[in-house]
């Protein structure tokens, strides 16, 4: 079973800026390399996707996936950065991890990120909202 060292060795060329904390590994991944990294985490390391966090920063938007390696208690968190605030888009990991389907739909409606290849790109939480909310988590941060 691959461990953190094996992961860093094999995926090293695909990993950008890295923060290694106690039990937590946050690292940047280019959008084009995300699928390879996710396949490695989900299929080879048997990691489980806890969820993903999207947020807007001054430089753009970012999506941080949280993969839990339950046999060691370690978290692996690939981070994808997008600088185009008007049309942020990246590839969906839902075709690889079914458990990502809902959270990617949520990130789309909350922050306006388009996930290419998502099997069902519909609103999840705000479809029936009386005020017709649109990207509510971005409203207070003018670009």
């Amino acid at each position, binding site marked *: 079973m691959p461990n953190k060292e094996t992961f860093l060795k094999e995926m090293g060329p695909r990993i950008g800026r890295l923060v290694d*904390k*106690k*039990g*937590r590994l*946050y690292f940047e991944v280019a959008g084009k390399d995300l699928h390879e990294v996710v396949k490695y985490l989900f299929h080879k390391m*048997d990691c*489980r*996707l*806890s*969820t993903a*966090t999207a*947020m807007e920063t001054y430089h753009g938007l970012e999506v*941080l996936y*949280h993969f*839990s390696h*339950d*046999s*060691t*208690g370690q*978290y692996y*968190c690939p981070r994808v950065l997008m600088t185009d605030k008007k049309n942020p888009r990246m590839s969906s990991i839902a075709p690889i*991890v*079914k*458990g990502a*389907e*809902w*959270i990617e739909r949520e990130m789309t409606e909350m922050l306006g990120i388009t996930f290419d290849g998502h099997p069902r790109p519909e*609103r*999840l*939480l*705000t*479809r*029936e*909202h009386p005020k017709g909310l649109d990207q*509510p*988590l971005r409203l207070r941060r003018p670009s």
Partner: protein
Amino acid sequence: MIKTVIPVGPFHPLLEEAEYFTLTVDGETVVDIDMDIGWMHRGHEYLSEGKTFTQSIYLVERICGICSTSHPIACAHAIEDVDNVEIPPRAAYIRTLVGELERIHSHLLWLGLAGHFIGYDTLWMWAWKYREPVLQIFEKISGNRNHYGMLRVGGVGRDVDPDSISGLLRILDEVWRKIEMVAQAAGDDPVLKARLKGVGVLSKQAAVDYCAVGPTARASGVPIDVRKDEPSDAYGLVEFKKIVLQNGDVYDKLVVRLLETLESIKIVRQCLEKLKAAPGAILNDVKEISAGEGIGRYEAPRGEVFHYVRTDGSNRPIRHKVRAPSYVNIPTFAVSCKGIPVADVLITLASVDPCYCCTERAVRMVDSHNLPFRIDLAKLSREKTARIRREIHG
């Protein structure tokens, strides 16, 4: 072939949070299920960004009335994870104590509801009767039967009175005896086995694919439990077993919860014994949280609760992500509900332990005669149990 669409929800007595399920049935067999959530979206993540860390803990306590200490524990873990804040040993035992008491009352609540849905009203009344002393323990410890307000960054906000511990242990002994009795009665009942075995099966592979958590995953043979995988608070200091079964049906989910309840009582006893003998501080003085990010999680009764915070050095999170266990367990209905009779849908939906909301279904359907279209899932489920009972007992 005529297929019928049956709406369940958005307001239904089975569902704690308002969710809307669309069942497509062919005859009596469910061939497809669709889920529509968002009816109770309250914007907690956005609200939290306007609160201080201490206020955030109070806020997330109100996400769920049943897991009302699991969210605060996970939230405190996430904030503490930013700076690797340590908590005093006594606070660790108190956190574990409150968390496990919550598991006992939540599992007993579920057991009662499950019994009611399949026509075992005696089981329902027993389970809820024996849950009552657990709520009384909460009242003695925290002053509240629910929403305990115990958690703080760096520890807990209220100590457990050592003089009250002997009385609490006596109450627990009584709860243990009653739960053992219920477990034995449930295990020996041929009707219950015939009614629940092989119903709503979630395979191990499906549980892994959908990233299911908690008893839903453990009943399908996925050995994940945050309390063992990443022991926090006092979980590394107490002895208990991780309950994992293999069949993935509703019966195994019932057994997992019953056995876990007994394990939780064991943990609570150990915590109380330690609290009797180990005086000390309950809160470390945390002056500030530096800029960074932290992940916190806790094994709630329904599975892993996940919190993530991003901080900028101020006293508020700039991003607070919350993921409750039902968010990953509910999508598994796409597998567990397909191919089963309509009469089994209710107990299969209930098997992942969605909480209870005392409201009624609000969708109005009209049939071909312009009369209200109604299907009573609870009635169908209870009739099936009665039929099995007649077949077994004559």
